[in-house]
């Protein structure tokens, strides 16, 4: 369970923004919140498999770039039509300027 993977430098993501990270055939979205914390979720929207890294981050919400499905990226909770399935989240830590995510 302790398989922490280095995703990017902390400075690679702007505040209140998102970046794509691919690892081991899987794809993730890494977020930096307005209050400067980091989060990670599965990369693809649960509605139509569109990558969320092209979406817009506003406060705690990531919005799918295609159909405006919304999730709370801190908890993965779906926030209304057209999405109804929650997004999987992953533990994140910042260590020596690197963002690490724990891929279970």
């Amino acid at each position, binding site marked *: 369970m302790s398989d922490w993977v280095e995703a990017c430098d902390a400075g690679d993501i702007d505040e209140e923004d998102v970046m794509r990270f691919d690892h081991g055939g899987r794809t993730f979205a890494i977020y930096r919140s307005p209050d400067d914390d980091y989060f990670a979720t599965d990369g693809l929207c649960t509605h139509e498999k569109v990558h969320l890294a*092209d*979406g817009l981050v506003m406060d705690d919400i990531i919005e799918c770039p295609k*159909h*405006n499905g919304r999730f709370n990226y801190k908890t993965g909770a779906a926030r209304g039509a*057209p999405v109804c399935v929650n997004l999987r989240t992953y533990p994140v830590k910042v260590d020596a300027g690197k963002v690490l995510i724990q891929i279970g």
Partner: protein
Amino acid sequence: MARGMVIIGAGECGGRAALALRDLGYDGPVTLVGDEPHLPYERPPLSKDAMVDDLPAIKAIASDEILAGKSIRHIHSVQAKAIDRAAHTVRLSDGSVLTYDKLLLATGSTPRRLPMPGLGARCVYLRTFADALAIRAHLRPGNRIAIVGGGFIGLELAAAARKLGAEVTVIEAQRRILMRGVPAEIAEVIHGAHVAEGVNILCGEGISAIDDNGSRVRITLAGGLEVSADLAVIGIGAVPVTGLAAEASLTIDNGIAVDAKLHTSDPDIFAAGDCCSFPLAVYGGRRVRLEAWRNAQEQGALAARNMLGAGESHAAVPWFWSDQYGLSLQIAGLSDEGHSVVRRDLGDGAFILFHLAGDGRLVAASGVGPGNAVARDIRLAEMLIGKRAMPSPDALGSQTVKLKSLLAA
């Protein structure tokens, strides 16, 4: 006892409204009536993925289990025949009668028919899943597909048909494709993509005759050219389904006329989605009718709130999208409200046009690019439009100024 809520039309709009009524805590009867045999489903894939997937399937908005779990009664394969406003009842084609406290008309739109003689079995329209399957059966290498109308549906179909190896000719009566609602600069990019993929696009070509013998179609153009095809798909727009409302003497004005709260001329009857025209607050109450997925969804949810007495006015900015080949086009607002244009390049050939009104207010933004390259900025533009912002043209045009920073201004 509550007579309950009745929704006529089980598409995106009606389906969303039914779900929203339950999400809002309404516990009376909810009945959703649709004339197709399917669960409520999303239509946008019909001209896109459903055309190229090996096993096309409907993308249901809610499963039978979800509808049952929410006690939403879904009556399918049945048409609503008549509304008795005084009695608060709707009579259905199977002879049954539903009573309502509030009624929502989400009857959608239907393809505009080509008003010509000569159309037969090989001239088809696309609206339903059944239509999509019938078209798909003809999309294969060597088959010739003629598409009448260079709008979104026709062009998305053209892209799908090329992907499956069919030969495609698009016939557009106007001088360019996407005349309605899409700026010329963006239509040019889409046009170029189709030509590069081998689509033959004929613009400025009226049709003088159609001869369909049941196994092939011959289309004679006004200029004399003849196009032969195994199938002709006609995509020349849609008309609102208003018959039921008109017979009930509700006001019709380019669709079922509703106010900003989606009331028809009868306070207990609402209309939403493609079938209605409504005052668009963001443009000073200009009456419009939108044929758009997101509008259907938003108005379905708004109608549900107002059926329960919320009294909320529609405030959304129109939003449309289209996918063709690897390109995605997104538009927020109605670009015909604009007087001047500022262009922002995003790299990789992606760009956004910002449409400004005479007073400098941002009224629309249209973008095109690979993948979802324009999505985030179009979304931000949509918020700026909603705020009636007057961003400086220099900031809009400069890649180094983040659009998000203009929201705070």
